[in-house]
């Protein structure tokens, strides 16, 4: 049975659940941040639908370069909530050994790459990754997400040009949430973002990133194009950042919120209303989903909070494959200062 178009009821239910899980997780993290349990967070609230849609469209073998605001995408692709908390706590179970700020993941098991803070600087890496995949005759395409602000970076420009010149299978997806911290997109650029590919001969498309059905439909064309070997493609997913840029930011200084958590324009609420209307779910199901999500994230954080921190002297590992004499000497210096 299908809800709309190719979207089966089952898929829609999973998507909805993951969106709710992501939102619940996000709120949990913000609270944990306020309590000093987690250091920092970049909320993904409001951007869940386009992220879920990407997760649904991507195949396992597709390589995803996500950015720091893609919580729903990780969940949709199967990353356990516990692994996310480990990273955010920087504890000794963190796959990255506590090296990065919260939200900077490298879930390579799920074929994600690595997240950095300098905006846009992951985008050129996708060109090389796609080149390597084609060179090694690997299946799959490369997908990269980034914000509207990132389209101004030099990295964006270099990456689109190189991807086009070598006709590589990279799907560029801009999550245009309307702001780069305090800068509205209207001050970031005078062009439509989805048209920016025309400077490189790359086709583009704008999709309503707050609507699951529209996102899926729009992405379909883009994925088909890239998968068929025609080259790179640029999608602009129009979405909205509910809440602050980060836990350090106060958006009241620069904007009036247009969409708020749980309001009628909230993308999760929109999906919820659609599913209710189509009879795919009832209010009972919605209730249960939310409660289960809450239980899941509460339990996960409780568990992960008890994991001890990393060994202090591990800060000298992974600078190089093997520490040089410099790191070894400094490790001894640290031990002497303990």
């Amino acid at each position, binding site marked *: 049975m299908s809800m709309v178009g190719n979207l089966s009821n089952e898929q829609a239910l999973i998507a909805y659940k993951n969106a709710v899980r992501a939102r619940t997780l996000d709120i949990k993290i913000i609270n944990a941040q306020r309590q000093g349990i987690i250091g920092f967070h970049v909320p993904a609230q409001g951007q869940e639908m386009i992220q879920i849609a990407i997760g649904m469209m991507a195949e396992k073998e597709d390589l995803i370069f996500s950015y720091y605001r893609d919580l729903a995408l990780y969940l949709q692709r199967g990353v356990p909530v516990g692994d996310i908390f480990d990273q955010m706590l920087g504890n000794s179970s963190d796959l990255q050994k506590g*090296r990065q700020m919260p939200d900077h993941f490298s879930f390579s098991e799920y074929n994600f790459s690595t997240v950095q803070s300098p905006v846009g600087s992951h985008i050129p890496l996708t060109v090389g990754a796609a080149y390597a995949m084609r060179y090694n005759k690997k299946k799959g395409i490369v997908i990269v997400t980034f914000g509207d*602000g990132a389209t101004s970076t030099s990295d964006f420009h270099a990456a689109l040009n190189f991807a086009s010149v070598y006709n590589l299978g990279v799907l560029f997806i801009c999550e245009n949430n309307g702001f*780069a911290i305090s800068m509205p997109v209207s001050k970031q650029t005078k062009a439509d973002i989805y048209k920016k590919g025309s400077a490189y001969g790359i086709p583009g498309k704008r999709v309503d990133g707050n609507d699951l059905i529209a996102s899926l439909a729009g992405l379909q064309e883009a994925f088909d194009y890239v998968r068929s070997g025609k080259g790179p493609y640029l999608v602009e997913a129009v979405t909205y950042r509910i809440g602050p840029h980060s836990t350090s930011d106060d958006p009241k*200084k*620069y904007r009036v919120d247009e969409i708020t958590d749980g309001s009628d324009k909230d993308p999760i609420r929109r999906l919820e209303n659609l599913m209710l209307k189509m009879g795919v779910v009832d209010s009972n199901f919605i209730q249960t989903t939310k409660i289960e999500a809450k239980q899941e994230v509460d339990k996960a954080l409780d568990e992960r909070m008890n994991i001890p921190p990393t060994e202090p002297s591990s800060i000298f590992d992974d600078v190089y494959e093997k520490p040089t004499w410099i790191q070894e000497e400094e490790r001894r210096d640290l031990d002497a200062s303990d």
Partner: protein
Amino acid sequence: MPQINMVQSLNRSLDQLMAGDERIVLLGEDIGIDGGVFRVTDNLMNKYGEERVIDTPLNELGIIGMATGMAMYGLKPIAEIQFQDYIFPAFDQIVNNVAKVRYRTGGRFSVPLIIRTPYGGGVKGGLYHSQSGESYFAHTPGLTVVTPSNPYDARGLLVSAYKSNDPVIFLEPKRLYRAIKTEVPDELFEVEIGKAAKLKEGDDLSIITYGSTVPTVMNTVEKNGVNADVIDLRTLLPMDVGSIIETAEKTGRVVIVHEAPKTLGVGAEVSALIAERAIDSLRSPIVRVAGYDTPFPYSHEELYLPGEKRIMNAVNKVLAH
């Protein structure tokens, strides 16, 4: 005089300088309506308008390139790079244009530009909100590099940077932004570029430091009763070689403290200057206490930063020699 912190000192100084000189424009990411992520430019857009306080698109190359053109053609731009970690996209502009325009044109053009940027750790910012990249700039002839360690110097150095007709990299130790309040006169005054400050007189050894580690050093020597000359370099290019050599010759024992990675950190140059000019006065090794030679880790940043323990180990080492 009221006590103010470094953010307030910088904000007030920018305000007064702008009031007095229409050539001054500010530009950077989120510096306008938002007032800068650290609030250094708070309220200035309100006061001076969008033409003089310019929110820019997200491209540091663009910020510095634009600022360079402004400086060459009659304005006095003060650019903000949101975190020093994000200055590298503009590195080519800084090294190949900003630092070299005067030289390559035989003095026909100059670039009287100030680049302000917060640097250093201590705010749980991990690899990309904690770097201390001063060496990258202090190795580049044509640039002037300064860093205040307190609200007073912040004001004085900013005024001096404003008066300079050369480009100044103005490094703001972000963990000191609100950590210290001092009295700062409300008249504009200068702290001379190229002059270190002696923060404390002592006989047993010299501790040379700057910027973010100055309070750590002062607390350490006070708490432990260390009888040290303490020098705050304040300018990293050109360094105050006179003060450095004077203290090295006086005490014969030198410890250098900074937060940037040790290898080729500014301490290397301080040490080399002494080894070149005051070798006969030295009675013990020159010891550097610095950030470790790793990227800046998120976990255990308190261990990465030079702290009391490590400073005292170094002090004891040179004293015991």
